[in-house]
C-alpha cells in the first residue's frame, strides 16, 4: 500500500481514487457504462460532457450517493463500496454540490461548521464553541485567499462564486483528500467562474485530488491535468493535458464535425454578433485571471 501522501503534481504512486469499467443502471436506463479514470493527489481530473452524459451519476458513485452496479471502485488502491455520503466523507472524499452546498439564512461561520460543530464543556453544558468557530472560519477563508467581509453575514447575501469558494474552503479545512465539484461554475458569470477556478487551483496546490465536473471546456482546460469526456453514459476517452489541446477538447465535447458545422453557421449568421466576441472573451478572461497556463 502506498503511504506517500505528499502532493506530487503529476506524480506517481497509488491514485487516491480509481474506477475501472464502472457502470450504473437505473432500471433499464444505463446511466454510465465502462467508465475508467483516476484521481491523484495534487491533480485536477475534469469530467466533461453534455447534459445527460452521466457526469453527475459518476460522481455520485464516488461520493457515496449511489453504488456502482459493475466494475471496480478503488480508494488508495483498495476496492470500496460506500453505503452513504458520510462513509465517503470519512475516507476524505468531500463533495460540493451546486445547490446543496449552503443554508442561505445562516451566517457564514454557522454554515462553515454545520454538521461538524466544535464543542466545549461536558454533559448538559456541552456547547457549540462559537468563539472558536468564528475565529477558525475567518482564518481558513483568509488562508484560501477568500476575503469575507463579515463572517456573521448570511450566506444568502454572498454571490454564487463566493458561496462555492466558502464550500471549497470548508472541505479543505475538514481534511478532504479528494474534492468533488459538480458544475461549480455553470451558474456563474465569467469573473465569478474565474474566482472559483482560482480556489480549485489553491486546493490542488495544497495536495488535494480534485474532480471537476463541467460542460464548459473553457473552464476545464486551464485548471485540468487530465480530461475524461463522457457522452451518453460512455467514455469518449481520457487525455492528459499534454496530449490534447483546448480546441481538440472543445471539439470532442460537441462531437467534432457537429461543432464545426455549428461554428460555420454561427459565423455566417452573425459576423458582427456578440456571440463570437463572447467566445473569444471567455478564453481571454481566463488568461487575465491568471488561471490559464
Amino acid at each position, binding site marked *: 500500500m502506498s503511504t506517500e501522501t505528499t502532493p506530487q503534481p503529476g506524480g506517481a504512486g497509488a491514485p487516491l481514487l480509481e474506477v475501472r469499467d464502472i457502470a450504473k443502471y437505473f432500471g433499464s436506463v444505463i446511466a454510465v457504462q465502462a467508465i475508467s479514470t483516476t484521481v491523484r493527489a495534487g491533480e485536477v481530473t475534469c469530467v466533461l460532457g453534455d447534459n445527460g452524459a452521466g457526469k453527475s451519476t459518476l460522481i455520485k458513485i464516488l461520493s457515496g450517493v449511489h453504488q456502482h452496479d459493475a466494475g471496480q471502485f478503488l480508494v488508495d488502491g483498495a476496492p470500496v463500496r460506500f453505503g452513504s455520503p458520510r462513509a465517503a*466523507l470519512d475516507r476524505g472524499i468531500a463533495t460540493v454540490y451546486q445547490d*446543496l452546498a449552503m443554508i*442561505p439564512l*445562516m451566517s457564514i461561520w454557522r454554515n462553515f461548521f454545520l*454538521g461538524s460543530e466544535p464543542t466545549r464543556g461536558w454533559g448538559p453544558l456541552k456547547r*457549540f464553541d462559537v468563539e472558536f468557530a468564528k475565529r477558525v472560519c475567518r482564518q481558513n477563508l*483568509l488562508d484560501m485567499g477568500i476575503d469575507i467581509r*463579515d463572517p456573521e453575514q448570511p450566506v444568502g*447575501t454572498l454571490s454564487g462564486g463566493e458561496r462555492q469558494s466558502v464550500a471549497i474552503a470548508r472541505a479543505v479545512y475538514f481534511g478532504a483528500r479528494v474534492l468533488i465539484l459538480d458544475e461549480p461554475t455553470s451558474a456563474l458569470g465569467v469573473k465569478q467562474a474565474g474566482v472559483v477556478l482560482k480556489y480549485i487551483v489553491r486546493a490542488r496546490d495544497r495536495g488535494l485530488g480534485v474532480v471537476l465536473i463541467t460542460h464548459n471546456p473553457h473552464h476545464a482546460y486551464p485548471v485540468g491535468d487530465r480530461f475524461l469526456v463522457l457522452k451518453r453514459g460512455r467514455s469518449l476517452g481520457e487525455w492528459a493535458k499534454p496530449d490534447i489541446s483546448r480546441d481538440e477538447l472543445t471539439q470532442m465535447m460537441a462531437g467534432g464535425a457537429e461543432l464545426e458545422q455549428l461554428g460555420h453557421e454561427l459565423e455566417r449568421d452573425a459576423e458582427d454578433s456578440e456571440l463570437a466576441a463572447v467566445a473569444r472573451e471567455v478564453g481571454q478572461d481566463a488568461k487575465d485571471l491568471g488561471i490559464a497556463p
Partner: protein
Amino acid sequence: MTTAVPTADERIAPVGVLRRLLVRPELGAVVGAIAVFTFFASLSPVFRSVEGIANWLDPASTLGVMAVAVALLMIGGEFDLSAGVLTGTSGLTLAMLSAVYGWNIWSAMLVGLVLALAIGLFNGMMVIRTKLPSFIVTLGTMLMLMGINLGVTKAVTGSVQIGGIADAPGYDLARRMFAQTIPFLGVEFRVAIFWWLGVTAIATWVLLRTKAGNWIFASGGNAPAARSVGVPVARTKIALFMTTAFAAWLVGSILALRLTSVQANTGINQEFIYIIAAVIGGCLLTGGYGSAIGAAIGALIFGMADKGIIFAGWDSDWFKFFLGVMLVLATLTNHMVRRFAEEKRK
C-alpha cells in the same frame, strides 16, 4: 502557504452596529411590545401598576411557554396544529387519573407526560415518513385529539368537565411547583411566569449556543443541504415535535393544577395563537429563521393586549381586532427590516 492575519475589514464599517441590531429577528417584537405597553400604560394607571403587571404577565406566561416551543419547531421548518388541543389532553389525563381514579398527582402527571411525548413522536414520525406537510398531519392529530378529549371525558364522567384535582394525594407539592403565587413587591405573581422565563432562557441557549441549535436552523433553512453535510434532520425534527408536546404537557398541567378542574374543550383554537406569537417574534413561516426570545415577547404583547383592553374599559371583543393589527404590523416590520439588513453590502 502564507498565513494571512485577520484584520478588521474596512468594508464592514458602514454596515456596523445599526445593521447588526436590525438583523436580529426579535426586533419587530421588541418595538411592538414597547408600543403596546406605552399605549395601554397611558390609557390605564392600573395597567402600569405592579398589580397590573402581575395580571398581564399571567396570560403571557402560559402562552409564552407554548410560543417558544412552537417557535423552535417553526425555525426547524414545521408546524404543530395539535399543540393547543394537546394541552387539553394532558390536563384531562391528569384530572381523570387523579380525580376520577384516585391516583397520586405525580403518577398522573407522569402518565400525561408519556402520553404527550408519544403524541409528539407520532406527529414527528408521520411527517418524516409520509413527507406530507406537517400542517396536514398535525391538523389530523388535532381533530383526533379533539374527538378523544370530548368523547372519553363524556364517557367516563358523563359531563364535559373533570373537577376535584385538589383532593388527590400529592396535590399540595404539585401546586407549589406549578400553580402557586409568589409575593413580590407586595403583589402575588404566578409561578408560571418563572417557568416561562426558564423555558425561554433554555430555548435561547440551545438555539444559539449548541450543536442542536445549529441543526434546527439548518433543518428548517434547507433540509437537503443540511442532510448532505451530516445533520440528522429527521431526528432533529422529531425532537422538535416532542419538545412542543412537552411544552403542551407543562402548560396543560399548570392550568389543571391551578383551576383544579379541566374542561374537555381546553386548548381548542389556541394553536394559531402560538403560531401568531412566534411570527410576531420574528419567525418565518417558511422556516430557518426566528428567535425564542422573540416568541416570548410575542406572547408578552398578547398578555398586555388581552388585559390592557379590559383595563382600558373596552369591550373584550376588540382583542381580536387588536391581534390582527399587531400581526400585520409585526410581520411587515420584520419583512422590511430583514430586507434592509440582508441587502447586498458592497
